[in-house]
């Protein structure tokens, strides 16, 4: 696929990654700050803090999957 449609395809793939990456980063920033705060109070919370912090990572993985699927169609 060439021309405008192809270009829009690439742009959508980029948008899928960019938007989800920002979303994941923002969510991790919020959770990470809280988790570090909680850990300072109670060190045993490291495991739980780690899990909560990495949960939003899935968002960017979804973005990546979508981007790859879009690129596959081009």
């Amino acid at each position: 696929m060439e021309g405008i449609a192809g270009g829009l395809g690439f742009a959508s793939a980029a948008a899928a990654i960019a938007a989800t990456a920002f979303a994941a980063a923002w969510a991790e920033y919020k959770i990470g700050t809280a988790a570090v705060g909680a850990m300072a109070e109670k060190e045993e919370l490291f495991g739980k803090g780690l899990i909560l912090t990495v949960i939003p990572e899935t968002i960017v993985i979804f973005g990546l999957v979508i981007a790859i699927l879009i690129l596959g169609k081009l």
Partner: protein
Amino acid sequence: MTKVIAVVPKSKVKPAISALYKAGALHIIEHKKDETHDIGAPLADSGRVSALLLKIRSIAGSLSLNLPKDGSSEQNQEKGRDLGKIPSLASLENEFGLLEGKVQEVLQKKENLAKAISREENDLFLLECASALKLSRNILTPSENLSLVVGTAKKGVEISPILKKISYDFLLRTSEVKETVVLALIVKMSSKKEFMGALSQVEFQPLDMSGISLKGTIPAALKMKREYLEKLQDNLQAAEKGISGIAKKSFPMLVSANRYLSQEIQRQEAPLLFAATDYAYAVSGYVPTDTYDAVLGSLSKATQGKMLFEKVHTGHDEHLPVQLINPPKVKPFEFFLNLYSLPSYHEKDPSNIIAFTFPILFGFMLGDVGYGLATILLVRWLKKKFGDFPLFSIIFYASLSSIFFGLIFGEYFGFEEIGSFAFPHLISRAHELNELMYIAVGIGFLHINLGLAIGFFNALKHHGLMFAVFEKGSWFILQLGIIVGIVLFSFHLLSGAGLGLFLVLVILVFGVLAVKGEGIKGLVEMPAIFSNMLSYARLMAIGVSSVQLAIVINENALEMFHSGIVGILGGILLMLVGHTINIALGLLGSFLHSLRLHYVEFFSKFFQGGGIPYAPFGQKQKGVYED
């Protein structure tokens, strides 16, 4: 675990505690004071033992010695004194009383010397000032009309112009001693106040010269002072040497006494955990079932049969302590459960499954023969340097898996080919992205279903078949239904509308079962199982990012190889630094993501956690003295 209540008469509590401590098997449930039973009182010597312990730690503190904590590594045990008979408290008190006296004496001596040195140094400075400012005895002798002011001032400021603003009637000498500006000013008594005001502009700090001895010449006094100071410093050094000698000599003794008394204080204070009546103590706790008879036998023997035991039935929702028992190869993987939460008593310990699945996920992400070998070497070095930590063993097994997947992907430090020779591979991560993604999600499908299967068996064991089918089986039905629907559709046995209807039916069946098993939560979580599987696409994402970085490093380095000797050196440097960074990133990323897939996606299918670690009362390490 078997729950037991033991009752012992107060007269036999001491041997009973000793036997309990030696057995090191009873996880005591602390008795809380209630209306009927108070808690026990510590044994008679507890005050003396804790006072002695305090004394030993204070001696160690004043000698700047770090005593190893109880339960620390074997290496520290070696530092302790040779095994001998248990010393009596009185002899220990005597021994450490003497040592404390000696330590205090030498420390006092050192302190006095330090004080004297500081005083003499101050005097020496004054003398040096007097010498530098050429102050003779005549000048230093107080007079009626003239006033002498000596002191220090700010560096780099001309002082006399400031003073001249007040009057020209003064005599000023300045000099520098030990990088400090010193000045001597002679003014009329009547104008002293104004001059002092002006001096405050140069941060003037007066020095008290009245302490200087006026006998003899200043150079002679200086020489004497310097000699005396040297002597004092020699004495201080000798005193410090003496202290470190005492510290070195008494360290083994302090270590073993500290360990013995730390154990003894636990024994002395054990009755605080017991319930007390007028004549007896009662203690309840958990004993591993297989050691039950042996422990009770030894307790019975130690108390001449005066200790009574009764097995107690444990309720189903009672939180029994758990102890993870795994073969040595799996043991390091218990680290992940300690970090997260121990399994509760009634569920399966997933360590052995993690020991199998963790390296697979890790290796899939960091699948490179070269990187695997590099991390193995790294781990071996770390083990040698820092001792055996579970984390190192985990990375070792994970690295083996990296090598295995490296062979499958045909990757050697990012190279898929050298010259015209292409390494054999089953799938190329750099070129077959889509296939890799499907495999990654497929691994997720297997991993999650493994989790569901464990959950199914946990539920089957404790709640029966029906509940297991409702709670976990429903998920299998949902997945199976969707797969069957898609297969039928792709073989044209179902029309589009038929597929839709079929899926609605499957979801309906799932919904009914899940609501029965897990309540409304099960229904709400239905899409989560698919997002969980998609989450495994990260296996591909992390892996590909690592490969691409390696390829970029290699391409740039190879280009540099064509531009002479400097280029070759630069290329080698780029490869070394680049691959080191990539390995570090790969290790961190692969480790954390693999861990996350276990904690979030895998554990949520079966793991409840919340287990209390089994912490038996008694010695975690061998005693210091013979018993």
